[in-house]
């Protein structure tokens, strides 16, 4: 490809293309980063500095107190814990159920397999927001309105098709021979699952778990729908209320948003490969 070839000095059309290429690359990067940097800088100003000075001035002294306000006044700490708890629980339930079904779909040919498969595919494409009314009713009927259990169940459930796809994809890539040897040695259905397939499909499971947790962490619509108590609010629902709570205290609100974004960005930078693998393979297969 081009980098292996000795490039002569660029001229004419090639030069124009190279310039356009770099303008685009930098434009998209600035477009993404600039607002985030502006948000962080604003969150370190005093309200007076923010309201009276140019939006691009720097704070005379970074106001870390805004972050303290956001954590204490808005109860952000509690919301973060709620999000972590609900996200981890839902992810655990989700990944257990999904790896079981992925094992069946990947390893066995049975009656109805094709139909189940179609159902999972449709499950990925259906606009879940359109199902707000039935989800609201189902969670109520199960007596789970305004409970952690309701959120955990709903989050685990709506991620099942995607997680099954991701884990199945990895299981499909494990050759049958690995299992057949164990099968001949008398290793049963459960033994093959726990001792062979599960350890070998670790990367697929981590991908599914990362993807599921991120989805839970960022989810707003259903958390807003099935929870009313302030004590159970997740961080995303919290953000919606900050805007009222901090109607005059802009800088603390921005600090709160920065706090809510940090775990997403950090998690992404740490699990980048898994998240990208999950989002791409899921999308291509879905």
């Amino acid at each position: 490809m081009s980098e292996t070839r000795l490039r002569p000095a660029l001229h004419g059309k090639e030069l124009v293309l190279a310039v356009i290429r770099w303008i685009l690359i930098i434009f998209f990067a600035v477009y993404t980063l600039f607002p985030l940097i502006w948000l962080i800088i604003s969150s370190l100003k005093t309200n007076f500095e923010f309201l009276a000075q140019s939006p691009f001035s720097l704070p005379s002294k970074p106001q870390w107190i805004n972050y303290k306000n956001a954590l204490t006044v808005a109860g952000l700490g509690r919301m973060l814990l709620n999000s972590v708890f609900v996200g981890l629980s839902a992810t655990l339930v989700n990944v257990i159920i999904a790896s079981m079904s992925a094992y069946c779909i990947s390893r066995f040919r049975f009656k109805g397999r094709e139909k189940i498969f179609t159902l999972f595919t449709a499950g990925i494409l259906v606009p879940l927001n359109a199902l707000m009314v039935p989800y609201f009713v189902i969670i109520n009927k199960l007596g789970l309105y305004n409970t952690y259990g309701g959120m955990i169940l709903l989050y685990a459930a709506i991620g099942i098709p995607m997680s099954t796809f991701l884990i199945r994809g990895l299981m499909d890539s494990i050759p049958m021979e690995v299992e057949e040897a164990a099968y001949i040695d008398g290793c049963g259905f459960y033994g093959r699952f726990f001792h062979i397939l599960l350890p070998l499909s670790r990367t697929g499971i981590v991908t599914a778990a990362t993807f599921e947790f991120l989805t839970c962490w960022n989810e707003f619509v259903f958390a807003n729908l099935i929870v009313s108590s302030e004590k159970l609010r997740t961080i995303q629902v919290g953000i919606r209320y900050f805007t009222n709570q901090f109607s005059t205290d802009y800088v603390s609100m921005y600090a709160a948003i920065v706090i809510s974004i940090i775990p997403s960005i950090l998690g992404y930078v740490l699990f980048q490969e898994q998240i990208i693998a999950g989002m791409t393979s899921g999308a291509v297969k879905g």
Partner: protein
Amino acid sequence: MKLIRSDRKALYAFMAPALAVMILFFVIPVIYVIVVSFLKWNGISAPALNNLKNYALLMKDKSFSRSVINNIIWALVAGFIQVPLAMVMAIILSRKPKGWKFFRTVYFFPQVISGIALATLWRAIYNAEHGMLNGLLRAIGAGAAAKDWLGTIQTAFPAVLIYWVFYVGYYMVIMMADITTIDTSYYEAATIDGATDFQQAIYITIPLIKKTSLLTCVTLASVMGLRQFEQVYMLTNGQPANTTSTIVLYMYKKMQNANYGIASASAVILIIVGVVFIVCIRKLFEGRGDKPVVAKNVRRAVK
């Protein structure tokens, strides 16, 4: 693998939880919205058959038709502006220019930040008094153009639409994964023949990803466009004068008023619009039997 009888039981036990979830949270809810869309029901008194009246009411309601139109515009902008931009960036970054990993990471940021946080950030940017956009305009001496972006009828919907168009990371990454699977010998041969990078993109890359990742991305982007809720909810709540509403926001408001029949009918319309979009996009991409064209382009590029 062959199933022996004792395995069969275990298999059903293993499949059962996922199947139960699929039935309870996917099959039943879809049937449910369809049934309720024919009912008059406020969640308290007994539901009564309402025939097609919910749909008739929706057709007459201007704010609903506005929501449908907004969603269609949203889906088209996502599928036919955002995705092509993402494709251009995917082609550029898959040539691995300096720092491509850094740029890929940065472009992907908006994808891992929640819709609510992003919308709140953009509400601050669009703010009339101390927003970043107006500040930027004043700084470059175009202060006259500064306005209340989300409060003015003419600019509210474009403002809601435009900010995410340049967040191309997600689709870009999907297409990059596809582009890396293309056989490099195509490009080598084309380079020897003196084809420019631009020509290689037009004659090799685009035709080869068209039916795979490009189709996937256009479909995904459009479907996402039809689902929109958090962003409008947070940015404008449909205001001013309902010009920025979407179907899901409309549905949500009807639900808040315990008007479950109408809410469900709008959900059914959303699902139908979604299916129509998916089918049309497939037709558009598969329509003219262009497999041979791809092959010809590749051959031409290779020669």
